[in-house]
C-alpha cells in the first residue's frame, strides 16, 4: 500500500490557512488572503495536527467583513480599495468550510473516516495530486470511493459532488480501468440512501465529467 508524504505538509510557508473552528465533522479554515483564490469547492485539504492529519473536502467558501457594521466602502471596487487601504484584507474574513472525510497517520497511511480532531490554528495545506490518489484507493490499491459516504454525510449536495468529481478528475482518471473505477464509484454512492433523483444525477455527472458517457 502506497502512503502519502506527510512530511511535506508542515510549516507556515506552504500552508493555505489555519483551523478556526470545528463543529463535528465540519471544520472552518481561515485562509490566508493571498491563498484564498487558489482554493475552490471540491478541493481536498490536509491539516497538520501533529501525529494525525485530518483530511477535508471544501464544501463552502466564506468571504465577509470581519465586523458586522462599519467598513463597507461600496462603489470603489477591490483594486481601487487596495490602493486606498493597502491593509484592507485584514478587515475581511477569507474562510472555507470543509467536511472531514479521512485522516493520515504520522507514517502517511490514509484511513477513510473521522480522525482525531485538529487543534485550532493547526495549518491547513492544499493536498498534492499524487497524495490525493491515495484517498481513492483501498489497502489493496483498488479503486474505492468510500470517502464519498463521508462527504455526502456531511453535505448532501449534488452540486458539491459534481464539483468534487470535477476538481479531482485527473486523479480519478489515473486510478485504473474505467470499469473498475466506475464500479467503485457506483458501489459507494449506492451504499447511501440518496434517493433516485440524486443517484441518477450523481451517476450522470460522474460519467459526463469523466468523459465515459459513450
Amino acid at each position: 500500500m502506497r502512503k502519502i508524504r506527510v512530511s511535506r505538509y508542515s510549516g507556515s510557508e506552504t500552508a493555505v490557512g489555519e483551523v478556526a473552528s470545528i463543529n463535528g465533522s465540519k471544520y472552518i479554515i481561515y485562509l490566508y488572503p493571498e491563498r484564498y483564490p487558489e482554493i475552490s469547492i471540491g478541493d481536498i485539504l490536509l491539516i497538520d495536527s501533529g501525529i494525525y492529519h485530518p483530511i477535508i473536502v471544501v464544501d463552502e467558501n466564506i468571504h465577509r467583513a470581519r465586523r458586522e457594521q462599519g467598513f463597507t466602502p461600496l462603489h470603489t471596487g477591490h483594486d481601487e480599495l487596495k490602493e486606498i487601504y493597502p491593509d484592507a484584507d485584514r478587515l475581511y474574513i477569507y474562510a472555507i468550510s470543509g467536511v472531514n472525510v479521512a485522516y493520515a497517520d504520522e507514517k502517511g497511511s490514509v484511513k477513510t473516516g473521522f480522525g482525531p480532531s485538529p487543534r485550532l490554528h493547526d495549518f491547513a495545506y492544499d493536498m498534492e495530486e499524487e497524495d490525493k490518489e491515495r484517498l481513492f484507493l483501498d489497502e489493496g490499491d483498488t479503486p474505492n470511493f468510500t470517502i464519498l459516504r463521508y462527504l455526502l454525510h456531511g453535505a448532501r449536495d449534488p452540486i458539491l459532488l459534481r464539483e468534487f468529481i470535477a476538481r479531482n478528475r485527473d486523479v480519478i482518471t489515473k486510478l485504473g480501468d474505467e470499469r473498475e473505477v466506475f464500479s467503485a464509484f457506483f458501489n459507494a454512492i449506492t451504499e447511501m440512501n440518496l434517493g433516485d433523483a440524486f443517484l441518477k444525477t450523481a451517476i450522470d455527472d460522474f460519467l459526463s465529467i469523466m468523459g465515459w458517457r459513450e
Partner: protein
Amino acid sequence: MKVIGSVLEASFEKGIVACLMRGEDPEDYPIGSLAIIDTDRNSYLAILNEVQYTGELNPSILMNIPSRFRDGIMPHVRKRYVNYIVKLIPIAKYSKEKNITEKPDTIPPYGARLIKAVPSEIAIYYGEPDWQKTYPLGRPKLIGEVGYEVPVDIKNLVNLNFGIYGKSGSGKTFIANLLVGYGILYTLYNRGEEDYIDIRFLIFDMHDEYSLEVLDNSRRPIAKGVANIFRKEFVIYTPDIENSNKFRMNYLPIPLYDMPSGYLKMIIEPLGVTQAFLDNLATFEKKIKRVMEKSGNTILSDPGYWILGLILSQETIDRVMSLMDRRETEFIESDRSVTRRSLYDLIEAIENVIGEEREALKSFKAGRRRLIRLLNMPISFKKKYSRTIDEIVKYLINPKGKSVVISMGRYEKTMSVYLALANLIGERLRIKLQEKIAEGMEESPTKIIILLEEAHKFLEKKPGAYSPFGVIAREMRKRGVIIVPIDQKPGDLDPDVTSMIWTNMVFALTDPKDVSAALTGIDNPKLYESIVYSLKPGEAVIYGPAVKFPVVLSIEDYSKVSREFEKRYKEYIGKKRSKSLYEDDLSRD
C-alpha cells in the same frame, strides 16, 4: 449447519416463504430441491417450489448506465438492491423432543432458520436403501449437495395401485424397469420371510424395452431390459413370429379359435365396427356356428372357427387362402383340407342364414368390411393358441409360476393388436380370479402387478365402455392384483381409477389437465404444479406410501443399476445352485 435464509411467512395452504441471506446465488436453488427449516423444537423438511426476487433499483438508473459498465456493478446491485425469496412446501416434520418424523401439523415460526439439507439429515426422513426390502430409487435435489439415495419400499409400493406418468422420453420406461427389477430382487431375497410377498409382473411391453433392450431417446440400446436380465423369472410372449424365433420367445397370436363373441367385441371395437354390428354379434355367432355345424368339410364344420365365417367374404377369400399358404403365419389347424370352393360355399351359406333378416345382413356386411383389418393382425385359429391365454393367467396366479411379458415386436405401433392382447389377457385374468373368489379364495396367492402402457386406452372415462382393467383396478386390489398405469396422458384416465392410485411417479408433463390428474392425492397439489412443469428428463415427483414423504428425485441411472441387477442375479443363481447341490448331497447321504 449453514443458514441460508429466514422464514418470513408460512401457512398450510400457501406454504412457506423465506428470504435468502445476502450473497446467496439464486442459481444454486433449483426448483424441487430439498431444504430444512430449523427451529428450536422441530426441523421441517421442505421442497422448494419457487425462487423469485424483487429488484429495488430504479430501472431508469440502471438503463442510463452504458452497457460496458453494467457487468461490473451487478454484483453490488444484486447485493444491495435485490431480495431473493424462496417458496417451500413443508412435507415432513422431525420433532426434536419426540425424536420422530411425521407429516407436518404445525408451521415454523417467523424468522426460523432455512438451512441447507445435507444427506445425513435427509436420511432421517426417508431412511436408506438396504437392498432387501428397500431399494435406491433416485437422488433428491439438494442445494449444492448430492450423494444420497432415497429408497423405495417395495412392500408399500406393491400393496396398492401405483402410477407412472410423464411425457414421451421423460423416463417412464427406465423407472418401470427399475421397479420391476427391485420387485424381482425383493421376491428372490425375501422368500420364506414372515411378511413375504410373491410378486408377479404382467408387463405389456409395447416397445420390447422390458423383454429385450432399454433404449435412449435416440433409440440406441443402453441396457438389457429387466426381463432379459432376470430371464428365468419371466416367460416372454410375442405376437411377432420372427421375434419369437429369433429371441426364443413364446409365440402369442390373437387366438380366434372358439373365441366367444363377448371377447371378440373387445378386439374388434377399436376397428371401427358399428354399434349395431356389436349388438348383433352374439346372434351372428349363433347363426354362423349353426351353418358350420351343417357343413360337410371336416375343418369348417367345427363351430370353433365361427370367426373365420365372420370375416370371410368375396373380398377376403384370397387373403385368407394366402394366409393359409404362408408358413410364417400359423393360421388354422389343417389348412390343406380347406379349399377355395369350400370357403365360397361357407360364405354363401352364412349370408343366406343371416339374410333371413334384411337389416341384420346389411349390418353384417358393413361390419365384415371393417373386419378386413383383422387379417393384417397376427391372428390364429389354431386350437393350441386358444389355451395360451389361460397358460399366461396360470403363470401369474400359480405360486410356482413366473412373471409374464407380452413383447409386441413389430406390432409396437399397432395399437389394435396391443389392445386386443391386453384386453384378452386382462379379461381372462379377471374371470379366473372371480372364479377363484367364488370358490372361496380371499386373495390371490401371488401379488399380480400389471404394467399397462398407454393406460388411458384401457382406463379412460367413457360412458358404457367396458375394460377388464377398469374392473381390476377398482375391484381386485384387495384380492392381490394391482394396476400400474404408465401413461403420458393421465388427464384422460378415469378419475375413479386415478383416485385409487396411491404411489405416484410424476415425470415432466405440460398439459395442465395431465398435471392436475397426476397430482391427485398429494396435499396442496397446486403448490407442486410449478415443479412438475420444470422437471427435466429423468426427474420425477414421487409421492405416496412407497416413499415416506413427497420428494423430487433424479431417478437412478437404469443402465448402471441394470449391471447391479446382473451381478446380484448371478450371485443369487450361484448360491441357489450350490444350495441345491448341497441338499442333493445330503439326500444321497
